[in-house]
């Protein structure tokens, strides 16, 4: 998948429906945003009717509410609690089973899934997040075969955000809102009074082949300009901002800053931030056996640096205090990730702020450590 490389096309809502049909007919399992339990979450979708029509979200520290829009937008909201890592890097995965026959045991690895996933409505920050997880799970010293199989066959239909969420700061992290690479198709939703259409950019041969199966026409220059205006408006209305050019030096030279103690008085170590984060990749393994001891399995599950078990070595946990665990999470996300994988681990999606039950705001914590306040914060 590459950068958008040719003139944009325009499709209607019916065209989007045809696109979903073509994707599913091509053997993909289509997954996209849906409304469930008063939140926008990713799930299997069959048609445009499964998308959250006319719905938006209100997000702030520790707060998430859905609301009605006064139009029929299908992508008129920011990201919800799910991210695509739910599919690519499963929350729970059996890695292998083992069987003991007499003196000998043998281990049978779980074969990688053969599902071809089509992600519908992937935002720029989420593409960046997937690319960040690629660096950890595929492009480092060892390959995770399950992630690799799903990732390589995945189709990405991206969406340029038409609305910035209340906790969004992708602009600060240079991760959005414009989708620039890593997609097969990229949509920009255009809502112009009575007209409802989508600009479509193609980013791969597969994307071009799909578009060719769908009724579309060349976008007019007015439509292209309208699409630009949507993205510019989103970029200009970020709910949060954070200076990000010096975070490695700033945080690693402030490992004993009093703010860590202060945030520890609020942090519940609940692990929400790590579960909703689209880049957090940490896992644990659970080795189990049946009662006879003849069969055993290993499961991998998401883990969090906020638990005591995470750093346990005989005698106790290395990070016994909430302060040290919050510091580990934030310094890893914003600072040491750069040493490890060449980029920040943060994409500015704002999920950790929204889904923190006490509304801890990573941008505010950085500001506090920087010693400045919001009024002097040098934005974006």
């Amino acid at each position: 998948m590459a950068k958008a490389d040719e003139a944009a096309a325009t499709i209607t809502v019916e065209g989007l429906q045809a696109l979903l049909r073509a994707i599913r007919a091509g053997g993909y399992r289509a997954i996209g945003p849906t409304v469930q339990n008063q939140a926008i979450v990713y799930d299997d979708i069959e048609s445009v009717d499964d998308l959250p029509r006319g719905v938006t979200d209100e997000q702030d520290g520790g707060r998430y509410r859905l609301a009605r829009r006064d139009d029929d937008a299908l992508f008129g909201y920011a990201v919800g609690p799910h991210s695509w890592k739910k599919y690519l890097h499963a929350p729970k995965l059996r890695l292998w089973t083992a069987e003991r026959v007499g003196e000998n045991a043998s281990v049978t690895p779980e074969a990688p899934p053969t599902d071809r996933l089509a992600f519908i409505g992937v935002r720029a920050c989420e593409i960046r997040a997937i690319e960040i997880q690629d660096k950890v799970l595929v492009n480092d010293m060892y390959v995770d075969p399950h992630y690799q199989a799903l990732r390589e066959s995945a189709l990405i239909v991206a969406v340029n955000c038409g609305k910035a969420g209340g906790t969004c700061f992708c602009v600060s992290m240079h991760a959005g809102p414009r989708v620039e690479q890593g997609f097969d198709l990229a949509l920009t939703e255009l809502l112009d009074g009575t007209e409802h259409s989508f600009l479509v950019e193609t980013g791969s041969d597969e994307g071009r082949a799909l578009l060719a199966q769908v009724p579309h026409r060349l976008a007019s220059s007015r439509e292209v300009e309208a699409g630009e205006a949507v993205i510019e408006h989103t970029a200009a209305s970020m709910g949060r901002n954070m200076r990000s050019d010096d975070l490695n030096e700033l945080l690693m030279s402030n490992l004993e800053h009093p703010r860590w103690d202060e945030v520890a008085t609020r942090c519940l170590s609940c692990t929400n931030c790590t579960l909703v984060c689209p880049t957090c990749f940490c896992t644990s393994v659970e080795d189990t056996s049946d009662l006879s001891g003849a069969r055993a399995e290993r499961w991998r599950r998401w883990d969090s640096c906020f638990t005591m078990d995470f750093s346990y070595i005989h005698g106790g946990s290395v990070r016994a205090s909430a302060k040290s665990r919050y510091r580990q999470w934030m310094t890893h996300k914003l600072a040491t990730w750069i040493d490890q994988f060449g980029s920040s681990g943060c994409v500015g999606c704002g999920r950790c702020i929204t889904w923190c039950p006490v509304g801890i705001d990573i941008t505010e914590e950085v500001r506090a450590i920087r010693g400045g306040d919001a009024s002097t914060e040098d934005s974006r």
Partner: protein
Amino acid sequence: MPQTLKACAPPPYPMAPTMTPVTRFIRESAEVFTFDLAPECATPFAPGQFNMLYAFGVGEIPISISGDSQSPERLTHTIRAVGPVSAALGRLKAGDQVGLRGPFGVGWPVEEAKGFDVLLIGGGIGLAPLRPAIYWLLRHRAAYGRVGVLYGARTPEDLIFGAELEEWRRTPDLQLRVAVERAGPDWTGDVGYVTPLLSKLRFDPADAIAMICGPEVMIRATALALEDAGVADSRIFVSMERNMKCAIGHCGHCQFGPLFICKDGPVHRYDRVRSLLAYREL
């Protein structure tokens, strides 16, 4: 046992262990035991590297290889029973099987140390990951300057590799000092920590490389003493331990600042970790 094993193919499933027979099990002390595994294909290892060992149905832990890297057809591990998995491994006997993944990580700088005086300092079970380096140095003795081994344990009963310690004591060109923290009247060796024994070793601080393995507090104290003696921090190497679930840089548990102990270590150059070691709970 064939003398040369066919090399193992790179495992397509890096989290899947290979069940491997235990060929020898010996008890070193009340808590510590050593066993050999006979892998079906060769997984050459460097001194200081570790394997992930799986006790069937119980769990998996990282264990440094304590045997001779020049005989990789026999993988020796020395383990202290401290948790459920190490305790389960301690109940094995010859003929049983252990799940094996590895080897992993960066080992001791035995090549870089050629031409230098070499100091190896182990605390407790920390002597086990150093033993492959000692074997290496003895096998290539002429390539190195003076070699000194310091080993500290809690009591004489906790000492591991007893017969070998006697052998090393008699080995020409190998300085060995063993200290215990507490001892009865029949102990004739040194009492206390290992750090004061540094002054008993003959070495040229300007031309020495040190390798340390033991509890973190012992590592810090020993590195400090070495620096006081004039050894540069870039010539001190320390082997570190953290919680580890995968050993392949994916689980995130072993992070230490920017480092993954599993793939950037377990052996680290001290000047690259000393500032991080200064922070509590990092």
